[in-house]
């Protein structure tokens, strides 16, 4: 009678122990697992440079050796607008001295460009910007404004028609 009771108690203890083991094991691993991986990329808007106004030279008279269009003060200054990532820093480069040959190849002039810039559309508040690796910042709307002036030396030429082009390079930093 006593022996029978003892056997039953022993079995109950073993079952309880094994059940506990199985719960722990199934919580740690399984025969199949799945890992979810997020893939992402933040794409920035391209940087655009829009010509808002061309550089216009006033009439030139025979006695003039040079003319000057101020980028800060002249209404004839060209105007460009940069559109890009808000508050992003960017770098610009431009060729500030070029030689233009007349369309009939009879004369040439030297053009020296001057560029001023400001983060708002306010020409009078703009400041002169260096031609090489100038570092600037777009405003909170992703904009920046340039005004382009020039000085032209006519001392080496007689008459002629000249067509020039101004280029500026921009890149994000």
């Amino acid at each position, binding site marked *: 009678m006593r022996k029978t009771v003892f056997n039953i108690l022993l079995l109950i203890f073993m079952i309880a122990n094994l059940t506990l*083991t199985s719960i722990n094991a199934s919580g740690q691993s399984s025969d199949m*697992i799945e890992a979810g*991986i997020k893939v992402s*990329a933040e794409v920035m808007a391209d940087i655009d440079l829009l010509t808002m106004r061309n550089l216009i030279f006033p009439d030139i008279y025979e006695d003039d050796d040079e003319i000057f269009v101020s980028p800060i003060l002249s209404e004839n200054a060209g105007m460009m607008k940069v559109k890009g990532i808000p508050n992003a820093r960017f770098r610009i480069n431009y060729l500030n001295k070029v030689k233009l040959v007349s369309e009939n190849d009879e004369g040439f002039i030297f053009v020296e460009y001057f560029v001023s810039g400001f983060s708002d559309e306010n020409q009078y508040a703009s400041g002169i910007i260096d031609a090489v690796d100038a570092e600037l910042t777009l405003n909170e709307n992703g904009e920046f404004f340039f005004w382009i002036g020039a000085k032209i030396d006519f001392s080496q030429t007689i008459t002629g028609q000249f067509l020039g082009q101004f280029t500026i390079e921009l890149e994000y930093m």
Partner: protein
Amino acid sequence: MKSKPIHIILFLMLMASFTTTAQRIGFEVRTGDGINILNSPEHLNFNRLNNLIMANSFEVITISLNDEFVTVIEIEAQAGRDITVEVNAPSYLALSGGKQSDNERINLDIRFAYSNSGNHSETEARLSAIEIPAGFSHATFPVKKRLSSQVTGLSQSRHYSGSTVNTERIWIFVFGSLGPIGKVRMGEYTAEISVIINYASHE
């Protein structure tokens, strides 16, 4: 003498109950030899390789196996068995909150590699990693690389109660290319990859 038959009946009822429970326990214990992920895989972020991904640049950004920005999954599984790794990835990243139109998608090409050489460091594992050719989303391989002198063929796919089970570490590397980045809208582009790892069945 009258009380003895009563005790015997009680004993048999308990035994019937115990037998059923014991079978279930035997199965559950074997799952302890399953597959475990040992790390927390980081997400695959192409901006980590290229801080400024520009729209309209037509650039292709490629995170390759040897780049530090690869997503690494470190797992542990039972040596002597084969596992199947399945990588399910969409063919494009989509603009978050967008309508999935053409200018809100960027081509995505996900690749993966594995190392089953028993390496215990990620650096060693990369050196011995095997890249799965482009276009394949599944790979089945032994948990522990078999030497050529060993018998080739299907691995043991069953195990027996009472046997000692060794585990081995496997490394899975997920990487790929994004682009070309065409005339797409600016913003965050995302996708979800699912990596499913299970024991291969040869039955």
